[in-house]
């Protein structure tokens, strides 16, 4: 019966960033969400618990006011959450996040399996999982699309650039999951209500001893402008012939075999 820990991040929703006007990146009014693929990480933990028993906790590093994310995560099935928070814990780079998670996990969490998303929706660095495994000195497999437990071994299917590999590894271990490993359930009203009664272990900066200095320094962040002020057409026959004419004029069709 495995003890499973899933790592999730509470992130600014990139859809708001793109839609916001201007060149500057303005995060003041954006909405937040659980990083997309961390929903798959949580779902996989809960699915494994349903199949094999054991228990599931969720863990996150963030700012003290990220409590909405905790509730959201707990409504998806974990029975407990670890909330490592400090006002300085924003804009962390992956080496810092991994070091903070590692310190807490080493000192106070009993685990057999740690599940991360393949990458966070904001940074998409795809580092925190494998870094964490390395610091904890446990085996890891990234980018998995299927997970089973057989006689205390994990059997995983992992994607590589030229195919799929089936691997086995002993626990404790860490995996990072691809979105197609499952379809995250949508929490209902009952789940949301019960989430607020679940225990949350609050861990502050003072509870930690590491200095967590950053290895990467951000020099600048610029909004990428991709807007093209194009022409909008209907779908009547004249629209279609107008379009084809335009594409011919642009030289992108015609003259093709």
């Amino acid at each position: 019966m495995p003890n499973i820990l899933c790592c999730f991040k509470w992130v600014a929703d990139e859809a708001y960033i793109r839609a916001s006007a201007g060149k500057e990146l303005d995060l003041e009014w954006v909405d937040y969400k659980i990083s997309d693929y961390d929903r798959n990480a949580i779902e996989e933990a809960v699915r494994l618990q349903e199949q094999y028993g054991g228990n599931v906790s969720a863990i996150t590093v963030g700012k003290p006011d990220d409590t909405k994310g905790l509730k959201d995560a707990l409504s998806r099935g974990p029975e407990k959450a670890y909330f490592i928070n400090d006002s300085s814990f924003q804009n962390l780079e992956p080496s810092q996040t991994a070091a903070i998670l590692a310190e807490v996990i080493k000192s106070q969490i009993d685990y057999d399996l740690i599940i991360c998303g393949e990458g966070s929706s904001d940074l998409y660095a795809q580092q925190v999982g494998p870094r964490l495994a390395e610091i904890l000195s446990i085996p890891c497999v990234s980018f998995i699309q299927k997970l089973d437990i057989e006689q205390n071994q994990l059997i995983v299917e992992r994607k590589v650039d030229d195919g799929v590999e089936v691997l086995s590894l002993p626990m404790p271990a860490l995996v990072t999951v691809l979105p197609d490993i499952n379809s995250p359930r949508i929490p209902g009203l009952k789940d949301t209500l019960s989430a607020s009664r679940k225990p949350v272990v609050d861990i502050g900066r003072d509870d930690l001893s590491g200095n967590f200095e950053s290895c990467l320094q951000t020099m600048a962040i610029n909004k990428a402008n991709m807007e093209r002020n194009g022409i909008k057409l209907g779908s009547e026959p004249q629209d279609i012939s107008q379009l084809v004419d335009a594409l011919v004029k642009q030289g992108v069709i015609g003259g093709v075999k």
Partner: protein
Amino acid sequence: MAGIWIFAENHKHCLELLNPGQKLAQKLGSPLAIFLWQDKELIKDYVSHGAEQIFVLPPLAADQTLEAYVPLIADLARREQPDVFLLGSSLRCKEMAARIAASLNTGLCSDCIAFNLNDSKALEMERLIFGGAAIQKVICVTSPQMATIPAGTFEAGPAQSPGEVRIVELADPLPSVVKLIDKKSNAHQSANLTEARVVVCVGRGLEKESDLGMARELAELLGAEIGCTRPISEELHWLPEDTCIGLSGIKVKPELYIGLGVSGQIQHITGIRDARIIFAINNDENAPIFDVSNYGMVGDVYKVVPQLINELKKTIK
């Protein structure tokens, strides 16, 4: 000790990374080294592309995968103290890079799309964040400075007359507890897609797999290659995974991109920003794809595409 180190999974990607690696090596006065396993025939090729050192990794047991080299490479880096370590961003190398970086306690710029050396000889590296909605510029203040670099970011340089080379044979790694049980390879296609002049991209606006026929007919008529959004390849598995366009897939740069039922989420758009003309068909007039299109057609793909095919047949003889 010093060095500019290169590690990538395949030959082509190695050559691509040797090119900027060689420039860095010259500017930093540091030898250019590359890792190699399996085929020693490649040494000549790497040397004529600037490699001055070859680290030859020993063969792996049948149940081991490339990641088993991680402790070995990290140890070597601790001894040799390279200045810069560039890896390809294949899935496997991303994991290896992150673990090596953690082991060396250094920073790693994932999916670096451009870099330059600043006045204090630090690499200023650019990468996409927020799904591609913003570009982050970072420097790595620890050593080695590490980055993973997507295939196709750089071009391989021309072969030159080879210089001196130092070949270093590395010891066997300890076997990893992660064991390979089985492997299925998939047939590759995407080389055509990244070079295609016209790309027809299929999104979830298509209802069923057989509707791909309509996209294929359009593609054939235009001499186009077929690409798709991530849900089509990763969730529905209608098309091979290496035809997924976007942040976690490939980048395309066609003269014409046609999106069929593609919503235009930022992670997808990131992969088509270099297309010259973007044309999208979507029945939701507020779909974000229209903001980034040169031509946007509000309509049902099932009605529009057959008409478009007819019209094109008249035009293209």
